[in-house]
């Protein structure tokens, strides 16, 4: 039922998002936009020596996109840029294929339920699309899910 999508941890992070703040000294920034539902997200990263020291976001969106951004920013800290991009691939795989999730996903496995709701996959991936844009240094306007 719908509880598999809105698991306790997702509801918790959507109601009380972690790292939901802008960051003055961020050295990587990107803006994400989902034109289908109007969700917007600004992602801030502090990357030093190739390692994510801090990650935060501000934006408005549904429970899935907010929880996804919250849990993503938590899981990024201490990871290298390469590890972060690998995690993105794994996360995308979790949402779009039946490949059993590896343990590197950690808490992010709670988003596995989104697979049953194709219309909501973009909600869950908005923050991650934005991450890719931030890490690749693409500052040419907002990245969209389309």
């Amino acid at each position: 039922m719908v509880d598999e999508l809105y698991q306790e941890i997702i509801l918790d992070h959507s109601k009380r998002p972690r790292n939901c703040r802008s960051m003055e000294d961020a050295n990587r920034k990107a803006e994400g936009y989902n034109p289908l539902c109007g969700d917007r997200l600004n992602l801030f990263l502090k990357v030093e020596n190739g390692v994510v020291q801090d990650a935060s976001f501000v934006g408005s969106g549904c429970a899935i996109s907010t929880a996804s951004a919250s849990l993503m920013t938590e899981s990024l800290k201490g990871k290298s840029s390469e590890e972060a991009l690998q995690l993105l691939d794994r996360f995308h795989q979790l949402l779009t294929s039946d490949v059993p999730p590896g343990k590197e996903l950690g808490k992010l496995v709670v988003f596995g339920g989104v697979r049953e709701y194709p219309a909501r996959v973009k909600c869950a991936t908005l923050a991650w699309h934005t991450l890719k844009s931030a890490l690749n240094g693409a500052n040419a306007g907002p990245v969209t899910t389309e």
Partner: protein
Amino acid sequence: MSTLTKMASAGFDVEQIRAEFPVLRQTIHGKPLVYLDSAATAQKPYAVIEAIRKFHEVDCANIHRGVHELSQRSTEAYEATRVKAKRFLNARSTEEVIFVRGATEGINLVASSWGRRNVKEGDEIIISALEHHSNIVPWQILAEEKGAKLRVIPMNSRGELLLEEYEKLLNPRTRIVAFCHVSNALGTINPAREMIEMAHRAGALALVDGAQAAPHMKVDVQALDADFYTFSGHKVCGPTGIGILYGKAELLDAMPPYQGGGDMIRTVTFEKTTYNDLPYKFEAGTPNIAGGIGLGAALDYLTRLGLDAIATYEHHLLAYGTEALSQISGLRLIGTARQKAAVLSFVIDGIHPHDIGTVLDRQGIAVRTGHHCAQPVMDAFHIPATTRASLAFYNTPAEIDALVAGLQKVKEIFS
């Protein structure tokens, strides 16, 4: 409710009507389907499904060309819809009834054909704050191409257009006013007749986007004195990919063709082509024949139920729904116009419309969530999106109750 019961005894039997819509008899995620998304597309009665099936099974041929029996049958069935659409809109003649893909194409046809010829640099085009993207973008494209100016009639917090502001926008440079008869996002019914009269007084033409009006009320283009009026087949219980553009004959006559191809020509040589008469001048290529025939069945169906009876029934359903939703704490209706069609657009504090839509879907309730292709409307209310329950004559008060129960469940999950 008592009025609805009375209507049932007067012959508007919603249970009997529902039995004619096969799609409504199913469960979604184990719950009976509650379809509250008719503003996106209306469901189809057997009469429409059968008409399309019969065309493909019995009469299928191309129209307007063969001398053989099947082609004649197809042509007759397709052209019969033009006559039905003429009656449905009360046009003067079938010359004024052009088949298009839908309201979007109807508007694009006028913007492209009439607009390119008649709009010049410095001219003005007026639209309204309530428009669907399909009645914004074609005019923007035209304005940009011609160096014309697009001006917008503002609305109040109920979602009603401000006619005194509209009056101020009109001036001798105004070439056309394009507005929706009924707003898709909010349900506002615009005073079309008055607005058209105002446009005419200023020497401008008026195009009415009737996509959301045609399914819900009697439309009389002569009484409105509309220059152009367009609607989509799929929103009046017909198939997708077919719609009608009405235009005054003298205007259509003076307009250049919209697309070139077969059927729209009289003679073709490599030096010169002469165009066909109205309405065929605007109908290049083999059209959506099955769709046209299905639309004819849909117009017959709505006419049989009676647009006035439909409007009365839906009005009571809307009142029932408005009252029921108003009881939900934290829920705010977006669009509270005094003249309103059966649309309930709303937001709930702290809960995103997409989450509402997903939880409702799991209870079998189909609603639309998002910006409804009307981003400027959302911007005016400072919201990114709404949840929209849009009603049709086949909906029941019990389905409104199911929506309310569904929303209570939404609140339980996200509270």
